[in-house]
């Protein structure tokens, strides 16, 4: 499968999962976290889906286009491990939706990062909130939800916080 095809599948899956998640959390208060701002595509979509939510984006640096950048109060720069551990004090147990787009093309690095971030993400999520991730998280006892039917041929992981 070509990289063009894979990119289309990845983006279709992200759109389907985020759309599903936005509906699921409609009645759950709390901010949204975008872990991995990147080019700002999914941040831009989340902002459109959830215009009244506070959305905080995390990344090492900002290289999204200007129209897909959060304001200075909603961007947290630095290593994900440190930034998310720090966010626990302010947001622990309150985040309605976390989208973590953290994968690279280095499977070992990704597995380590997912393992490192799992506990911080679990501590941030509100009860009934959702965590979407492009890599599998080991969240013991958390049910993994099926992907929406309009997702592309691309793996994604949706968990609901107990």
């Amino acid at each position: 499968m070509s990289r063009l095809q894979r990119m289309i599948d990845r983006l279709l899956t992200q759109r389907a999962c985020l759309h599903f998640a936005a509906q699921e959390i409609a009645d759950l208060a709390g901010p949204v976290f975008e872990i991995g701002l990147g080019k700002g595509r999914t941040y831009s979509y989340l902002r459109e889906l959830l215009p009244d939510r506070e959305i905080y984006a995390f990344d090492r640096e900002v290289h999204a286009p200007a129209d897909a950048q959060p304001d200075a109060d909603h961007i947290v720069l630095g290593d994900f491990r440190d930034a998310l551990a720090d966010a626990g004090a302010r947001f622990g147990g309150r985040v309605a939706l976390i989208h973590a787009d953290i994968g690279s093309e280095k499977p070992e690095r990704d597995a380590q990062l997912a393992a490192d971030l799992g506990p911080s993400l679990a501590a941030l999520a509100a009860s009934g909130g959702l965590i979407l991730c492009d890599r599998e998280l080991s969240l013991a006892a958390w049910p993994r939800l099926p992907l929406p039917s309009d997702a592309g041929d691309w793996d994604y992981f949706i968990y609901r916080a107990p």
Partner: protein
Amino acid sequence: MSRLDSAIRRLTAQRACLDAAIALVAGRDGPVLELGLGNGRSYDHLREALPGSDIFVFDRRAEAHPDCMPDDDHLILGDFRDTLPAAAARFGATVMLAHCDIGSGRPDADASLAAFVAGALAGLLAPGAVVVADQELDAAALTALDLPEGVAPGRYFMYRAGSP
């Protein structure tokens, strides 16, 4: 429209046009030109669909993912204004398929480059060759083709070499 939606729209239009063009040139001989390597996604798509073809890639710099990098014999670096005339001298009118992904998002620069590329391609295309482009190409030697279903007019462009 969100940036996610617009990326999906652009990439699905690109894929649909490339697939339609690949079907139109099936069984023909001649090199394929990819103008604008970028990260190598559409090059990878062409390479997968046309495994026996010589695909020559033109760009200013080679910045693709390593597994989407053409070998040195198929990568022609430099300004299109220099490399395309040199290619015409080398290949003549033998090219069966060209994909031009040359937009920068700066309308004036894009229009000027598209005008140059349209003229330069005329000397490279075999009769009946197909051109897929992210910019409108205006040349007497190019006849616009209908776009595949689902691709709105103006989103991507397809041409056949030769008068109607």
